[in-house]
């Protein structure tokens, strides 16, 4: 069943074509998109099962053998990422059917949505560096289309900033690919891994830095994250959830794939740099979130601080670190997407993303308050939710490697996260509803009285909260699967045991 590895790309691309053909019929288009993401979810599950049973699934496009043709591979890491993507895609599309801040129903919305999923899926299954660049461009263009869809001035301005900074990132990646090809003569991940293991590190290390920088731009790491807070807050709810849940994670995945798998033979200094970059990323992101009152801006800055945790995991440079990173990634995608979706419901009920103008939701919507608490506590890392295990694994490994400063930064960021989560809780849920402010937003005032059409939104939020709780209560199967997957990565051969110290 090696053709299963094609499905993360083919199914969304097919959905995109069908929805593009159905532009005139909104109902049929919507149904096709929903069925398409459902099929993607099924295929992602099947792919994961296949990987679990048989090990990495691979196929060679056009039957060209590995170092020459383009190879698609799904190992444990890739298959897990594809499943996460399918979940986020399905849930945000479900949420889009509700009336809680949906994206404007332009004809291009659903095709672009599917193309974005195809691009993300492609990056997760590709086994070729140049092909990775192509998928990055695919998802970048789809993301730009979605950003510009609203057509307001601030959205177009956000699109421009997103476009320029991200295009610089992809150009940097292209330059890096050119350098790496010149240095090693390969683009295939497997061949690159062998070449990196064989050759002197000094011959390719300077060139590895270039694509890594590009991935750091994509991930939104300090100090390269300027595009993220400049654009994310202009997105409507479901799209913001999709962007916050998936897009920066693609950058982290690429860093993980590069440093922990393909170029695991890199000298320690490069892991060291990633780890030290993670510290300001965590802190600056959390401080930015603490400063803002707009829910979307708070959550956008939180994306950055969570990227810091993930980079910290990669910077550890061990097998256990890689496994903890992937677990953290899964937890973070679920909890983050859910928080953004809940913010969209808060906007629908309270009439504003500004926390100062919301309130009284605990009394009015206790169920929503519970959903928020689950995701917020998961984000903070309270037991027994998923974030607790994720942070435990990560910080334990950090302490085993005697990285006191990194662990302290991670824990401090946890407290800062708690601060902004309690700010949202106090302002939006607990405090009394502020008196109606007629000068701001005409629909704001009476939204709470007639909140119909939120069924799909609650279903989407409920599914994600349920998954977060399930991951918290039964982490064992996931952790053991991820440990086995990390065992297949290149880092398992170079730094198999934890606590190897600073020896190169």
């Amino acid at each position, binding site marked *: 069943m090696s053709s299963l590895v094609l499905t993360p790309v083919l199914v969304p691309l097919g959905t995109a074509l069908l929805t593009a053909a159905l532009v005139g019929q909104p109902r049929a288009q919507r149904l096709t998109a929903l069925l398409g993401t459902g099929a993607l979810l099924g295929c992602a599950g099947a792919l994961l099962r296949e990987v679990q049973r048989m090990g990495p699934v691979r196929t060679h496009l056009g039957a060209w053998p590995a170092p020459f043709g383009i190879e698609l591979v799904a190992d444990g890491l890739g298959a897990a990422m594809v499943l996460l993507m399918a979940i986020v895609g399905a849930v945000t599309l479900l949420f889009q059917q509700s009336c809680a801040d949906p994206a404007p129903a332009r004809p291009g919305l659903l095709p672009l949505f599917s193309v974005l999923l195809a691009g993300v899926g492609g990056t997760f299954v590709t086994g070729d560096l*140049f092909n990775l660049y*192509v998928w990055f*461009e695919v998802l970048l*263009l789809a993301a*730009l289309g979605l950003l*510009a869809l609203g*057509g*307001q*001035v*601030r959205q*177009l*301005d956000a*699109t*421009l900033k997103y*476009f*320029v900074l991200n*295009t*610089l990132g992809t*150009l940097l990646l*292209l*330059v890096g*690919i*050119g*350098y790496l*090809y*010149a240095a090693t003569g390969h*683009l295939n991940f497997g061949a690159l891994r062998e070449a990196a293991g064989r050759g002197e590190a000094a011959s390719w290390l300077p060139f590895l830095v270039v694509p890594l920088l590009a991935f750091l731009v994509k991930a939104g790491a300090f100090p390269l994250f300027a595009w993220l807070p400049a654009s994310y807050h202009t997105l409507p709810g479901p799209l913001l959830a999709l962007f916050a849940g998936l897009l920066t994670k693609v950058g982290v995945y690429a860093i993980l794939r590069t440093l922990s798998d393909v170029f695991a033979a890199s000298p320690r200094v490069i892991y060291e740099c990633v780890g030290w970059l993670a510290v300001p990323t965590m802190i600056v992101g959390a401080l930015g979130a603490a400063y803002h009152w707009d829910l979307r801006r708070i959550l956008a800055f939180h994306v950055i601080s969570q990227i810091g945790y993930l980079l910290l995991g990669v910077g550890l440079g061990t097998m256990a670190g890689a496994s903890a990173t992937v677990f953290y990634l899964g937890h973070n995608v679920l909890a983050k997407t859910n928080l953004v979706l809940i913010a969209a419901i808060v906007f629908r009920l309270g009439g504003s993303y500004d926390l100062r103008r919301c309130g009284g939701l605990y009394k009015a919507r206790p169920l929503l308050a519970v959903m928020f608490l689950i995701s917020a506590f998961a984000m903070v890392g309270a037991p027994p939710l998923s974030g607790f295990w994720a942070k435990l694994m990560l910080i334990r490994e950090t302490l085993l490697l005697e990285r006191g400063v990194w662990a302290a930064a991670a824990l401090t960021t946890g407290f800062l996260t708690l601060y902004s989560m309690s700010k949202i809780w106090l302002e939006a849920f607990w405090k009394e509803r502020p008196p109606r402010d007629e000068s701001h937003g005409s629909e704001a005032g009476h939204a709470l009285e007639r909140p119909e059409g939120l069924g799909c939104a609650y279903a989407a939020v409920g599914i994600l909260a349920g998954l977060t709780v399930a991951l918290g209560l039964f982490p064992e199967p996931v952790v053991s699967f991820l440990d086995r997957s990390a065992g297949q990565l290149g880092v398992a051969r170079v730094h198999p045991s934890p606590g190897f110290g600073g020896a190169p």
Partner: protein
Amino acid sequence: MELLFALTAGVLYASGLYLMLRRRLAQLIIGLGLLTNGTNILIFTSGGLTRTNAPVLAADALETTEPFADPVPQALILTAIVIGFGVLAFSLVLAHQVHRSSGTDDVGDRQ
């Protein structure tokens, strides 16, 4: 020969970056186009430049005759040129929309 190509790429990068820092929409787009082409030239050079045989099998030969040009970078820049073209087209439309809706072509001066 490689030196000439490297210098060309460098000049394209320098002028592209200079234009992008001008904060005007049109310059921004042109600068991005120059950067894209500088990258293409860089990749083209990365395989090494040879002026000998084509990397194509002759009708009755089993192997190509050494030395031959590396075909991979050429395939790569073909893809990169097409993608760059698409991105450039998108950026022109975007710049046009931004300019029309905000009435200014200053990149920084807009809320």
